[in-house]
Each structure stands twice: as C-alpha cells, then as structure tokens.
C-alpha cells in the first residue's frame, strides 16, 4: 500500500469532485423540474399530454444511461453536422434521462395525496395550476423526500459516466492519475471511499429530515 500516491495527487483528484458535484446538482434540479412537468402531464386527463409523457418515461426508463450519452455525443453530431460539447452533452443526457425517474417518483407522491384535497381546492374556485402549486405538490413533495434523496444519490454516482466522453470529473481524474502512477488498488479504493462517504452523508441527512418531519407532523 502506498498512500503517498493519494496524498501527492489529492488536490488534482478532488478538483474533479467539484465538477462531479456540479453535474449532480444541475441534473437534480433540472431533472426534478422536468420530472414534475412530466408527472403532471402523465396524470392529466388530456390525451395529448398524457400519451407523450407516458411514452417519454417508458422510453428512457428502458435504456441504459450510457447509451443516451453516446447517442447525444456521437450520433447527434452525425445528424446535425455540428460537434457537441462534452459538458453540454453530459448535462443534457443526465437531465433528460433522470427526469423519467423523477417523474415516476413525483407521480407516486401526487397519487399518495387523497382525492378530497383536490376536490376541496377545485370547489373553492382554484385553477388546476394553483391546485397543483399550493395544495397538492407541497404535500406530495414532502412525502417524496426519502425517494428523492435516494434518486439524488444515484445521480451523484451516475455522473461518473461522464467519464466515457472525456469529462474530467472525479473518477476520470483518478483514472488519469492511475495511468501515470500505476497504483490502481490504492487509487480506486480511495475513489470508492469518497463516493461512499458522500452518498452516506446524503442518506443520513434524508433520515434526519424524515425524523424531523415526523416530529413536526405526526401522521
């Protein structure tokens, strides 16, 4: 074991963590917003909203993420004749892909709210949009917190796939150091520890949140 290789390259590798976190953050925010819209469309009684949203969700849930990244990065330029920036390709693939998963979480959360709540809101004259915004979504999102955090952790891990199109995020940098120093065991154990620590922190925070919520609002 040579931990020196980690110490020597610590700054360089952790520098990639910034990009990793940035990718994850943008994907989580963008994916959740798109996911909410998809979920609302999927729950709509209007077929021209329902069908495209449902097809979208089934389509992307049926594909591996890496294929979506390849399509966008390699196939898209062939069709349009313009090269795609790797960073943009990664972000777009992540958001588009993860939105399908968020959509199903959001849909389940919305359906967990009793129908009477919608009825009460509509009866008071609120529009469909206001009913969703002020009555249904705040309650639904609260119920969804555990599932959303789990998905956020998965996304954080998924960003390592950005490496296949040359993004210098955390895992790619570890990989680069390994190519130079040939210390795979130490380096990949270190990488595993970093992912594990951050994901565990996320799960722990979600549990805390959940407990705090139960204290405030015993169901």
């Amino acid at each position, binding site marked *: 074991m040579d931990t020196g290789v980690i110490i020597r390259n610590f700054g360089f590798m952790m520098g990639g963590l910034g990009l990793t976190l940035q990718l994850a953050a943008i994907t989580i925010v963008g994916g959740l917003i798109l996911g909410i819209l998809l979920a609302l469309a999927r729950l709509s009684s209007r077929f021209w909203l329902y069908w495209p949203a449902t097809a979208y969700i089934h389509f992307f849930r049926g594909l591996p993420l890496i294929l979506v990244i390849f399509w966008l990065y390699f196939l898209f330029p062939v069709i349009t004749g313009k090269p795609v920036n790797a960073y943009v390709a990664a972000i777009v693939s992540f958001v588009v892909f993860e939105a399908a998963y968020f959509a199903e979480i959001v849909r389940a959360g919305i359906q967990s709210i*009793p129908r009477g709540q919608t009825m009460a809101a509509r*009866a*008071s*004259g*609120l529009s469909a949009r*206001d009913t969703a915004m*002020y*009555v249904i979504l705040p309650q639904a999102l609260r119920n969804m917190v555990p599932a959303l955090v789990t998905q956020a952790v998965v996304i954080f891990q998924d960003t390592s796939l950005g490496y296949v199109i040359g993004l210098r995020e955390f895992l790619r940098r570890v990989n680069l150091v390994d190519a130079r120093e040939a210390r795979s065991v130490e380096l990949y154990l270190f990488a595993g520890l970093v992912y594990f620590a951050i994901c565990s922190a996320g799960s722990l925070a979600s549990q805390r949140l959940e407990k705090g919520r139960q204290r405030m*609002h015993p169901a």
Partner: protein
Amino acid sequence: MIDIAEVSLWYDRAHKALDRVSETIRRGQTVVICGPSGSGKSSLLRCINGLEAFQEGTIRVDGVSVRDPRTDIHRLRAEIGMVFQHFELYPHMTVMQNITLAPMRVRKKARAEAEQKAMALLERVGIPEKAARYPEELSGGQKQRVAIARALAMEPKIMLFDEPTSALDPEMIKEVLDVMTGLAQEGMTMVVVTHEMGFARTVADRIVFMSEGRVVETGTGRDFFERPQHERTRQFLDRILL
C-alpha cells in the same frame, strides 16, 4: 337560485348514479337531502358546482349553466362554498393559510384584507385562538368549523354541505350544527346532505328524500316526518329515527 332539471349521471355504463333528478332551490332556502348511502345525494351535490360531470340534463346556478363550456367554472365555484365529510383542510398550512388561500388566489385579495376577514370568520365560528395552528392540532369539530370558515371566506352565495357531521364524535356535532343553523337564519342558501334529522326538522325549509339515484319525495319538515307519502321514505325514517 339553483335549477336542477332532468340530471342524469353515469359513473360507467353499468352504474347510473343519478336518474333524471329535478329540483329547484330558491334564494335563502335551506334544503336537506337525505337517503340511504349510495342513493346519489353526494353526487348530486357535486354536480351543482361541476365537480361531477353529469351527462344529461342541466343545472343553472343564478341563471348560469354549470355544464355549458362557455361558463367560467372557476368563477362559478367561487360563488359556491363547499364543506366535506372529512373536512379536507390542507394539512401543510395553518388554519389562517387554509382560509386565505382561495380569497388571495381566486379573488386576488391582498393578504392583509384576507387575513382580517379570516379572523372575523374564526371569531364567528368561535375559535379565533387557533389561527396559527395546523389542522392536526384541532379536534374534529374545530376542523369542520375551520372548513366552514374557509368556505365562507369566499363570500359565497350558496353553501353546499356534504355530510358535515358524519365523521364527528357525537359531542362535537352540536357545535358544527349551531354554526350551520346560524347561517341558515341569516338567509344563506344552503344544500345540506345529512342524516341529522333534528337539524332537518327544525332548520330545513324543505327535505328531499333520495333513493337509488332518484328523488323519491320532497316535503316541508313537518309533512316529511309526519306524513311521508312513499313506502321507501317510511322505511328510511323508521330506521333512522328509531
């Protein structure tokens, strides 16, 4: 004020919930709808504010047709308050927020004005001290009084009550019925689905008895209880009045 003409409602092809129901409710009247469960009482109530999309017939509220596609249904609903069996307060909002949401979003009232009105209504239903509380901190009777205040905050012309005391413990029924009686005496137009026959007898101008999606019989309080015309009504009254 409310004109119901030949309304039929199907939930699916096999299940007809309302069968050519007609009824007229005049301004300032309190009409009680009663009948066995599954008789279509609540469905009829929900047809009045368009929460239920009936397939046949027309309902006019103040001359405005509920199912007409040109009708602004949100505007119409703003004029019709509704109170539910299970309260349906918004659990993530305080009592105050529950009451002010629709006035601010639908009537576009300023917050200060909406809150002032809400406090006055909470005084009226007897629980001003609960304004900052969440629904889960209230008893059933208090929740239903908040729900009534929430409906009144829109200054509706009509109030619909869907079994407002059925989910309450017996000792809390009176506090809710008292509020409703007060409203009726002030001349609010009310349609009340309830099994509270005491309320029906003393407050209702008219009682409508429904069974299997049809109006079987209607009458004033005294006629209805003392001279029921139909066998179905007599059976129902025997069972409910013991």
